[in-house]
């Protein structure tokens, strides 16, 4: 279990002082995938680096498995880091080593014999689907493949935790999807607790169990992903969930309703059903949905007629069909 207790981080002194983190308290339970989302500059990268003490917090406490990280000796801290894997936006592979030797690297660090390390590395390359590229150098790989190698490397020492710092931000949507699937598989099959840092809501929405929304160095909102996604309470969460939604809400009249597709009910063609069954014309103002293995994820904002009775008909239809929705603006 990872516990952050009123964590703070400041850089510099006096007039040049910058506060990167303010009073951050959160708990990541074993076995979950915890998301931390925020715009760039919100402090989320600093936050994840405070977990393994790549950045030393200036106040508060980081407690992992009951041990306070800031009180560990240097040797104990290095020991602790062997059980916390980390992957990065820029992959950070050793360019002068082959894929196999990259995965062996953390094992070398802890003194595993070369033959044993290579055996373990090959197993991991199989897990990430790159066993055939063991002899290649990073420069010969695509971005997605590099991140797979980085994941294999991060898992080499069988860590209990995996920190992902914008791990998919440099990848295209298809590759992002594949990496997210891989992370989810690793979480399920190896029981690795994952902390995901991202600025993309889809990453949170697809793999995370819980999420903390960071804004201006603080936690703006935290909870189950479904709950935050359906019912965002903070302005920043609304912006992250509905990019450009301010504009939509501001410029248009009428009643706006956001329909959430959470993957549970997608067989039904919602919009056409509304139109046909309620006999009400609706306007699609915004849609961000995608199909994952036959189930729909995402959301859509529809504009209902000004007519109170007609729009009420739509809302009660949504309720009857147990479709999650939220009135906007």
């Amino acid at each position, binding site marked *: 279990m990872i516990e952050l207790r009123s964590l703070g981080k400041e850089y510099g002194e006096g007039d040049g002082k910058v506060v990167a983190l303010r009073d951050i308290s959160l708990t990541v339970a074993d076995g979950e995938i915890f998301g931390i989302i925020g715009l760039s500059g919100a402090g989320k990268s600093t936050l994840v680096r405070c977990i393994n003490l790549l950045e030393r917090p200036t106040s508060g406490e980081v407690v992992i498995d009951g041990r306070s990280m800031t009180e560990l000796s240097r040797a104990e*801290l290095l020991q602790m*880091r062997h059980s916390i894997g980390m992957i990065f936006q820029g992959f950070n592979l050793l360019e002068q080593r082959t894929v196999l030797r990259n995965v062996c690297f953390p094992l070398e660090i802890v003194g595993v014999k070369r033959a044993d390390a290579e055996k373990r590395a090959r197993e991991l390359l199989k897990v990430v689907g790159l066993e055939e590229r063991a002899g290649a150098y*990073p420069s010969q790989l695509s971005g997605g493949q590099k991140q797979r190698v980085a994941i294999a490397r991060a898992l080499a020492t069988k860590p209990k935790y995996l920190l992902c710092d914008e791990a998919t931000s440099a990848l295209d949507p298809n590759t992002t999807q594949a990496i997210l699937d891989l992370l989810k598989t690793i979480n399920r099959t190896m029981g690795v607790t994952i902390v995901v840092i991202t600025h993309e809501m889809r990453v949170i929405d697809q793999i995370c169990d819980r999420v903390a929304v960071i804004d201006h160095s603080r936690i703006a909102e935290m909870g189950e992903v479904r709950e935050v996604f359906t019912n965002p309470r903070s302005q920043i969460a609304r912006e992250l969930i509905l990019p450009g939604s301010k504009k939509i809400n501001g410029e248009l009249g009428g009643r706006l309703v956001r329909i959430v597709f959470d993957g549970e009910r997608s067989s039904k063609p919602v919009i056409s059903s509304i139109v046909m069954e309620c006999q009400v014309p609706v306007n699609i103002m915004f849609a961000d949905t995608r199909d994952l293995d036959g189930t729909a994820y995402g959301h859509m904002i529809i504009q209902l007629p000004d007519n109170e009775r007609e729009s009420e008909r739509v809302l009660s239809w949504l309720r009857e069909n147990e479709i999650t929705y939220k009135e906007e603006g």
Partner: protein
Amino acid sequence: MFSEMFYKIWDAGILQLGVWETVYMTVLSSIVAYIIGLPLGVVLSVTAPGGIRPVGWLNRVLGFIVNFFRSIPFIVLMVAMLPVAKFVVGTSLGNKAVIVMLIIAAAPYVARMVEGSIKEVDAGVIEAANAMGCTNFQIVRKVLIPEAKPALINGAIISMVTILGYSAMAATIGGTGLGQIAIIYGHQRSNADITWICVLLLVIIVQIIQEVGMVIVRRTDKRTK
């Protein structure tokens, strides 16, 4: 077509010996300069602000020493360091003394070269190594030096060519080699052909260092294939 003097020194094997002496002095000085300069360069980059283990005072002290020696033109340094040579190798004359001078001049140069190469290693890779729980020594040995290897070899080529250039100046304190031949037989006795032959031989030696070096760099560097 050549002057009489050319045939004389050729037959006496002076020119051939000159090539050997130049190569020998350059290679030996380079090796010792790297034995001193490589760790020094690593320490400079590691202890620098933003390095993996910043130590302000140590970095400033070493930086000052390196800059001090780097500021002195080689020809002045040679004269100034004669007592040091006498202390180290027991004589302030000849090639033994010259090699000491070359090392004193080259080691700080090499240190800056190494420092520059190591600073080019991607900060992200170092961060990843830190996240994996590497000790600083492991980072130096398993990350910084291997990742900087192509740049280090490139630097070594440049350093060797510089040392070769210095070695020719050593004729002024009694060093031998192609520099001395060009000055004594070429310049002082007005045999322009000998001077030019020395030039040609030096150019060939430099080309060989360059080419061999570049082949090694290409073989070593795995970033572009």
